[in-house]
């Protein structure tokens, strides 16, 4: 018997998030059945426009979510091979590369005119089950790659699929009146995006040939608003010590808030998550068993490695509490949503996603999180093919070191291409950072707010072996 199997897991995951996995499975089965049930299918990337689609009885496929699903289940390989065989280079966004690989395969299977993709098991692969789109809506904030990905998708389908582009400008904040959620630029950009969303609804009406049901959207956005409030309240509770939930708990509950069907069950889910988090505080139970370090995670998720990373950090007695990807995304400004008149607030939430804010805003937010959660260090995931996330990382690292006085470290990986992940580099760099935190505690140079835990030997002496 492998000795690593005997070791108890150190990551103490929330049990209430388990139902999220069930919701994910049910959602994808709904997607896979769409054609048989005569439903229209819309592909989109980026912004969470799914409430509009659900209201119109259109089945929605979020490209990143599908690539992430494949990666999380370690089924991304054949799609990525198919994409590379078609001519997409490995340095291209791996979300897009994986998704485009599904398109290439879809077209090959449909046309039956090309040779099989290497290692492709047609009857078994999840990637082959993705239904082709009847329409594409591109609404990608900040990242030019997203818009081009949608355009290329339409071209791979022979330009026969109607496509609608929503342009989402960056919030640059260059004027004296500019601030987070304020200033002339903010107001004008919000209204510009709102107008496009109304035009998008007209496009949806053209595709469905029926009137859009605004009352349904109002009802749904009421659920989204409440679920988001509960999610953020639960996150706020994690400022306590030990933190009752970790960044990885918020990672596994992204799908429900971002792209799964909306309804009262969404509110129930996040109510149960909040209740469990609150109960843990009452019980003094942490997200890991011996919290000695409290960390921030900057960067997009490494979807091949969610469980792996959760366990790895737990074994370092480090709770990753907060992150840009989880805490600055996914309807994170519910106060802007007026369920009776939701479109402007939806537009504004699309605008403040964690890549569409320019560096000064991100610095302000990140420094604020480090202080609020009393963090000891920052881990930066340098995701090789996601430049949208890596763009400000050196600037963020400098700012956090200068303004908060905590150390940072980086590791190489990728959003869905496992070949870019460097485990040994992560080990050595995280260990070095934790040593630095220890040394600063001894010397008293760490900010006072972060020196609370007794200095004891870290419990990570044996090599970490985690089976996925």
């Amino acid at each position, binding site marked *: 018997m492998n000795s690593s199997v005997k070791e108890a897991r150190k990551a103490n995951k929330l049990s209430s998030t388990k139902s999220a996995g069930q919701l994910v499975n049910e959602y994808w089965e709904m997607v896979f059945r769409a054609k048989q049930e005569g439903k229209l299918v819309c592909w989109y990337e980026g912004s969470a426009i799914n409430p509009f689609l659900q209201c119109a009885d259109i089945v929605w496929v979020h490209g990143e979510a599908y690539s992430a699903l494949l990666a999380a289940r370690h089924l991304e390989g054949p799609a990525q091979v198919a994409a590379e065989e078609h001519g*997409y280079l490995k340095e291209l966004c791996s979300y897009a590369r994986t998704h485009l690989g599904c398109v290439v395969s879809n077209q090959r299977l449909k046309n039956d005119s090309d040779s099989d993709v290497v290692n492709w098991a047609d009857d078994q692969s999840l990637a082959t089950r993705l239904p082709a789109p009847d329409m594409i809506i591109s609404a990608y904030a900040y990242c*030019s790659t997203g818009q*081009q990905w949608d355009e290329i998708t339409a071209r791979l389908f022979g330009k026969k699929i109607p496509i609608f582009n929503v342009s989402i400008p960056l919030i640059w904040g*260059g004027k004296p009146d500019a601030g987070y959620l304020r200033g002339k630029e903010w107001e004008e950009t919000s209204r510009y995006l709102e107008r496009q969303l109304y035009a998008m609804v007209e496009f949806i009406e053209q595709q469905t040939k029926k009137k859009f049901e605004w009352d349904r959207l109002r009802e749904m956005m009421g659920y989204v608003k409440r679920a988001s409030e509960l999610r953020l309240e639960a996150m706020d509770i994690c400022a306590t010590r030990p933190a009752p939930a970790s960044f990885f708990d918020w990672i596994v509950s992204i799908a429900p808030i971002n792209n799964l069907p909306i309804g009262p069950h969404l509110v129930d889910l996040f109510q149960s998550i909040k209740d469990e988090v609150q109960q843990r505080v009452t019980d003094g139970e942490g997200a890991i068993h011996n919290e000695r370090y409290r960390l921030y995670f900057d960067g997009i998720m490494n979807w091949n490695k969610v469980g792996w990373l959760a366990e790895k950090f737990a074994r370092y007695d480090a709770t990753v509490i907060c992150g840009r990807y989880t805490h600055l995304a996914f309807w994170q400004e519910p106060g802007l949503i007026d369920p009776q008149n939701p479109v402007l607030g939806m537009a504004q939430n699309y605008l403040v996603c964690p890549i569409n804010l320019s560096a000064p805003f991100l610095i302000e937010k990140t420094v604020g999180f480090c202080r609020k959660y009393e963090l000891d260090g920052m881990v930066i995931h340098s995701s090789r093919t996601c430049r949208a996330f890596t763009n400000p990382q050196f*600037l963020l690292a400098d700012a956090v070191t200068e303004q908060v006085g905590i150390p940072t470290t980086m590791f190489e990986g990728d959003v869905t291409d496992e070949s870019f992940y460097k485990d040994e580099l992560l080990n050595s760099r995280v260990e070095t950072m934790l040593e630095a935190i220890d040394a600063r505690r001894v010397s008293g140079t760490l900010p006072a707010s972060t020196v609370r835990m007794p200095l004891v030997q870290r419990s990570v002496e044996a090599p970490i072996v985690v089976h996925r």
Partner: protein
Amino acid sequence: MSKEILDTFRRVASDPMGSVKAWKQASGQKVVGSFPMNFPGELVHAAGALPVLLQEADDPITVGHGVIYPFYCGYTRSVVDQATKGDFEILDAIMFGDHCVQLLGAADAVRIKAPQKPVVFYQLISSMNDPWTHGRARESFVGLKAELEEQFGQIDAKALHASIRLFNRNRKLIRRLYDLRRTGRISISARDMQAIVKSSMVMDKATHTAQLESLVSALEAAGPVPDRRHVRVHLSGHFCQAPKPEILDLIESCGATVVGDDLFHGFRYISTDVHEEGDPLDALAHWYMARNTGVPCPTRVQNDVDWDGFLLKAVSEEKAQGMVVLMAKFCEPHMYYYPEVKHAFERHGIPHLLVETEHEGIPMEGLKTRLETFLEIVRRREAAMA
């Protein structure tokens, strides 16, 4: 005479910032640096300043790698490196107007690493055939004009019209050179064509245009050098940054004659004129949209325009026998569209060669072998079909 003029253009192209410094010292005028590729230099010129397209430097990237990752395109890394080293001190402002995710990162880095330098931001819409594209583009140019006026004073319509006419004249002259080269009436190397275009991005436009007038006349009078039966090729790709001249030299020394291109430091830059009548901001918005139908750009999205179709047509009109694709490593727009081009050329039986370039340089001996093999394939294919 043409040698003297070309020497000037070559000198400017090889040291753009040095040339800008010299110009500023001599003229005492302001200089505005701009990110590529859709910057209306006419607005800056009408404001009485020198518009300069910021170029990838030849220097190795050093301190810039403390601000941006090595897996970014050479242009982005070089601009950040230059800003971090203080090489942009000579500039009075920097303009930024693109949506490329890497360039957006560079804009933030430049703003933070050069805090005293005004960074004027105007993000052009990149979806090119929406009902609101023209209006939004015009709004961006209105905002840009207003910001320039904050820095440099009022820009009146008369001055802007004059700048548009001057820039159009400059573009027309360079297009004339392209036409003469394509039809075999002059001989001009790919390196020199790049120097002509690149110097136009940097030099005072009136000076450059005056010299171009003389150069075009002199080259027309001189006529072509005898045809050495080289393979006629089209050069494609390389958007924001200029391909290294050494690569262009190598392509030609292996037995190719470059008869056309769609490089940004080439035909893409001078492809489209601005309407000289009517509202100039309206005209600039039209120019922005027309550029993408004239020479489609993978950095924009436009479902009714095909870059691969444009390239097939260009190759046919140029009587090119093959195409060399120059792709700057890590350039995502190019990575997206390359398979479209690849499959279209394969369907039409036109040979092409993909060359991935890097800021740090690429092994030239290996490239030489690939180019020689490619050109040999072209020759044999043509011989077999004859």
